[in-house]
């Protein structure tokens, strides 16, 4: 387990002081993929670098399995760091080394002999799907391939923890998917705890079980990814979720307000489904029970998360007022999150 206990990191520059990390407490469980989202400058990189002590906190402690990282120095710290892999936005490979030699670097640092290094590197090259490219130099690889080398290198010492700082931010959408799939596969095969830093909600939704949202050094919200997608609390979280779940919000807004004008006695509903509910015929059930209700579908979408499917449906119900109230009540008994939109 990784645990932050009331950790702060303050930078003093000539002009001002910056609370890059501001009284953060956080627990990350073994074998999970934990996401941290926030806008640029929120302090995400600083937070993740506190884990392997590349930065030392101004106050507070960071524990890894009951070892206080902030107390480690010299050899003890270096040995501990060998158990923590790290991958970076810009890959940070050595241009002077081939794919194979880059992957072997952590093993060289540890003092393994040539045969041991080769065997491990072969395994990893297989795992990340770079067979045949062993002797290429980084300048001869695509971004996605470079990140695969970065991942293989980070896994060389069989770490218990993998830190990913914006690992997909320099990649195009298709390559991002591939790299995320690879991270998921590694998590499932090797049960490595992963801390994933990103400004893209999409990344969190795709691979994380739990997450935290960061804003100017503070954690403004944390919890299971599915819960946060369903019930975002903080304004910032709502913004992130909205962007990911319903990017054409403006379109929907326009349609909703038009419909509200045209049929003022109708009801606009936003239904949020998750997990198994997404598969139940809830809507047709309601229409069967209340034949007097007419229904228009305005907009709908469904997203896959690590906690299951998550869907949104915007509906317009038209009919007698009492009937509509009963319909909504019925939906509520089906434990679908129902929100009546009065004016968008």
């Amino acid at each position: 387990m990784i645990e932050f206990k009331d950790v702060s990191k303050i930078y003093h520059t000539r002009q001002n002081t910056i609370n890059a990390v501001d009284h953060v407490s956080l627990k990350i469980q073994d074998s999970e993929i934990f996401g941290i989202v926030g806008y640029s400058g929120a302090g995400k990189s600083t937070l993740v670098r506190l884990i392997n002590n590349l930065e030392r906190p101004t106050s507070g402690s960071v524990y890894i399995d009951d070892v206080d990282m902030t107390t480690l120095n010299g050899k003890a710290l270096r040995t501990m760091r060998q158990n923590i892999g790290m991958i970076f936005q810009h890959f940070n490979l050595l241009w002077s080394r081939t794919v194979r030699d880059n992957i072997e670097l952590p093993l060289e640092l540890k003092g393994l002999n040539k045969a041991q290094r080769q065997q491990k590197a072969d395994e990893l090259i297989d795992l990340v799907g770079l067979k045949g490219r062993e002797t290429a130099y980084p300048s001869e690889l695509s971004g996605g391939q470079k990140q695969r080398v970065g991942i293989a290198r980070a896994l060389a010492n069989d770490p218990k923890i993998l830190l990913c700082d914006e690992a997909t931010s320099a990649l195009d959408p298709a390559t991002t998917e591939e790299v995320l799939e690879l991270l998921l596969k590694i998590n499932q095969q090797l049960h490595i705890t992963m801390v994933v830093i990103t400004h893209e909600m999409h990344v969190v939704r795709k691979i994380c079980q739990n997450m935290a949202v960061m804003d100017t050094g503070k954690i403004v919200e944390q919890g299971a990814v599915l819960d946060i997608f369903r019930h975002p609390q903080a304004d910032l979280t709502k913004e992130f979720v909205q962007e990911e779940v319903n990017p054409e919000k403006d379109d929907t807004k326009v349609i909703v307000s038009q419909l509200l004008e045209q049929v003022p006695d109708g009801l606009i509903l936003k239904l949020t489904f998750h997990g198994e509910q997404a598969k139940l015929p809830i809507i047709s059930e309601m229409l069967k029970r209340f034949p007097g209700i007419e229904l228009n579908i305005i907009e709908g979408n469904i997203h896959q998360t690590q906690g299951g499917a998550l869907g949104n449906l915007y509906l317009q119900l038209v009919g007698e007022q009492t009937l509509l109230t009963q319909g909504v009540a019925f939906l509520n008994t089906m434990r679908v999150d129902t929100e009546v939109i009065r004016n968008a």
Partner: protein
Amino acid sequence: MRDPNSFASYFNFAQVNWNNLWSATVETVWMTLLSLVFVFIFGIILGLLLFETTGKHTAGAVILNKLTAIFVNIFRSIPFIILIVLLIPLTKKMTGTIIGPRAAIPSLIISAAPFYARMVEIGFHEIDAGVIEAAEAMGASRLQIMWKVLIPESLPAIVSGITVTGISLIGYTAMAGVIGAGGLGNLAYQDGFQANQNAVTLTATVVILIVVFIFQAIGDFAVRKIDKRAIA
């Protein structure tokens, strides 16, 4: 042909003693290479010292950085011809002589090493900080970072730096030759200028140029071979 200063006198190659020319060339190359070996070693060590102590805030690092920087800046600024005179007593102690190629070596090293150290330091600063951070995150020690990251990742700068330094060392050996260190500079000055044999001076010049060009070509070739940053 009678006038020793005529233009044609430059081409009176009968004046050239080819054996002397050959041994002078060997002396020049030998002085340059031998001092270059030491310049390389001291330059890398000083460069590492400068790089590692820059931007650190511990008292030791700050003092070390200042001392190294002062040493480097002073010796880089002293004109070579003055330095060689200044160092005559030291040279005599170290080599037992103040004439001949051996006597030139200490001055050559002391004047070129600081110059080279600055180039090495610049090479280190050009390395992406993220790469060094990646090595730190792997648990590399400072020494491992120097040996496995700093030096290999700045090798093109290190090699092109040593080429440039080598070429200015060839120039320095010629200057040292004038005050008795031997080599092509000495030949051009004594057998050429002082003996009014312009052809000797011209030949010595041409040979120096050839040595410089060969040096540059080897250096450029090595840099191209080493540098894997651009797609070949």
